[in-house]
């Protein structure tokens, strides 16, 4: 009988870094500088994460064009990784992690496992969209998606786009559309101008960002783009080849204020986003302790300032550990790598303390702005309360708010029971699109986010096919133990 070998024999590395964005790439570089055997893994074709996405293969910047700061930072990071000779596995999907921290990956050549002594998780965030009627229509995309289209694919979302939601991406996307030659129908912001003004102190150390923000505002006004603060989308309907978008006024909590007439807009694309949610797939799978922190984006692994979680050998870094922004992410990645090197006995306490103090100071400085933005992006209870009953909340399974409320009234008291009774979270997105909003909806009945918890972390971390996992085999390759009892 052929020997069953689902994966090549695990090869030891010191530290496996999951995610090659600002945090993960910096963690890998620092770990290598500390003399550790590092492997950096990302499902994307190159490093940079979401915020520093490279151009698509075969694209080149036009000579004489001025790349943006992000483009420059991303190119610099990728170059540094190559120069430092960090071992990278791009285009590889992490689908499972064992309690020993063994990582199971699938890449173009098949499946493989790596057994590290430590794991640094820097998987970033996903975007949250609070549902509204019409949010699932083709042509309605996330703000992060619009950013990727504009900056990486060099494409507009539409000829005339409505931009809505909350947080720093709003103005960035709206001005990005104008710069690219598109029209912006309107910008709707759940926040008020007062909310934005209150973030000014956080910009004290970043006059460049303040200046950029003012320039964006000026550009939008010059183009005559209506900017409606304390407004959100009430509904999007198909109208010919485009959309009619009904808006609504909201209060400070995001709750729609009925009765007030609110403008309607026409556009052929809508881009909307209501903040970022840290990705906790891996840490939940490994049963690390988590806590709910609305100001950091939601549920996060309970970690110390260096990213150590409640599971030995498991570290988190970057926005996936709690939103603090791209600038802070790099420092956080380095802090995690240093802690890891120290914990593995490869960095003395004195050297560690020196570097750590410097990096923590740098992190605090950068995080001030990131935290202020996270505050703007935090999920607003009123927005959740205002979701109309027939609105789909779980996109994969078409589960509506009404069905979630019915399950709650029937006695569903935690996310897993909600999942069992409604199928919310059972689809291929594995709760990434709906989990945060569904949790907030259930919490209305159960009392708190802590009370309802999270979906239990499960493998696979991303959908993988039977063919990818099973590989090539014959019937004889399947180990058949003793027969079932008669």
């Amino acid at each position, binding site marked *: 009988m052929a020997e069953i070998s689902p994966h090549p024999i695990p090869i030891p590395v010191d530290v496996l870094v999951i995610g090659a964005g600002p945090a993960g790439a910096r963690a890998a570089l620092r770990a290598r500088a500390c003399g550790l055997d590092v492997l950096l893994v990302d499902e994307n074709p190159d490093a940079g994460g979401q915020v520093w996405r490279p151009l*698509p293969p*075969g694209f080149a910047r036009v000579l004489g064009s001025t790349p943006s700061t992000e483009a420059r930072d991303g190119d610099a990071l990728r170059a540094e990784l190559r120069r430092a000779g960090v071992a990278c596995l791009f285009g590889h999907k992490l689908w499972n992690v064992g309690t020993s921290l063994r990582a199971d990956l699938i890449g173009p050549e098949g499946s493989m496992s790596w057994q590290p002594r430590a794991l640094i998780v820097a998987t970033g965030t*996903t975007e949250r969209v609070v549902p509204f009627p019409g949010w699932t229509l083709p042509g309605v*995309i996330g703000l992060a*998606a619009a950013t990727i289209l504009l900056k990486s*694919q060099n494409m507009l979302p539409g000829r005339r786009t409505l931009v809505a939601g909350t947080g720093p991406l709003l103005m960035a996307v709206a001005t990005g559309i104008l710069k690219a030659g598109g029209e912006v129908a309107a910008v709707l912001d759940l926040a008020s101008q007062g909310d934005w003004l209150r973030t000014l102190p956080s910009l004290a150390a970043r006059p460049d960002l303040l200046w950029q923000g003012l320039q964006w505002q000026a550009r939008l006004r010059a183009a005559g783009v209506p900017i409606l603060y304390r407004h959100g989308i009430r509904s999007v309907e198909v109208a010919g080849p485009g959309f009619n978008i009904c808006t609504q006024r909201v209060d400070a909590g995001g709750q729609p204020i009925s009765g007030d007439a609110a403008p309607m807009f026409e556009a052929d694309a809508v881009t909307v986003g209501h903040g970022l949610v840290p990705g906790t797939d891996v840490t939940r799978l490994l049963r690390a302790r988590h806590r709910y922190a609305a100001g950091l984006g939601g549920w996060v692994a309970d970690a110390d300032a260096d990213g150590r979680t409640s599971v030995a050998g498991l570290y988190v870094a970057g926005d996936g550990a709690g939103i603090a922004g791209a600038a802070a992410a790099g420092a956080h990645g380095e802090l995690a790598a240093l802690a890891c090197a120290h914990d593995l006995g490869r960095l003395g306490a004195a050297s560690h303390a020196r570097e750590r103090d410097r990096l923590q100071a740098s992190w605090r400085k950068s995080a001030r702005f990131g935290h202020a933005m996270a505050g703007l992006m935090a999920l607003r209870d009123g927005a959740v309360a205002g979701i109309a009953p027939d609105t789909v909340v779980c996109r994969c399974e*078409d589960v509506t708010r009404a069905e979630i409320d019915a399950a709650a009234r029937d006695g569903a008291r935690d996310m897993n029971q909600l999942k069992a009774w409604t199928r919310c979270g059972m689809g291929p*997105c594995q709760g990434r699109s709906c989990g945060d909003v569904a949790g907030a909806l259930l919490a209305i009945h159960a009392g708190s986010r802590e009370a309802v918890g999270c979906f239990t972390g499960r493998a696979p971390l991303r959908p993988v096919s039977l063919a990818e996992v099973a590989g090539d085999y014959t019937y004889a390759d399947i180990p058949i133990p003793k027969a079932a009892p008669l």
Partner: protein
Amino acid sequence: MSLRVDQAVRRGPAVRFMVDGHAVEAFEGESVAAALFAAGTRALRQSPRDGTPRGLFCMMGSCQECLVWVGARKLPSCQLAVVAALEIETLSYREGHLG
């Protein structure tokens, strides 16, 4: 008016790839999701219960709305680069109303 923005980049070679048996013009290296979006094909599948049209949403491989078939593999098209002679099938085409 094309949705493609040519101010700051030079794209790779123009290519054609096949979608449900029809040719679509695109540029090598762009994501299939973006190429279809630019070609006006925004609906890529139907939702499983209600049959409502769905298309790209997150552009980062998370939402699973932009899935397409490439031979025997089902992939998010936002994570699939256009190459010459690529053949893809939308879910609606291959599976009918099943998403």
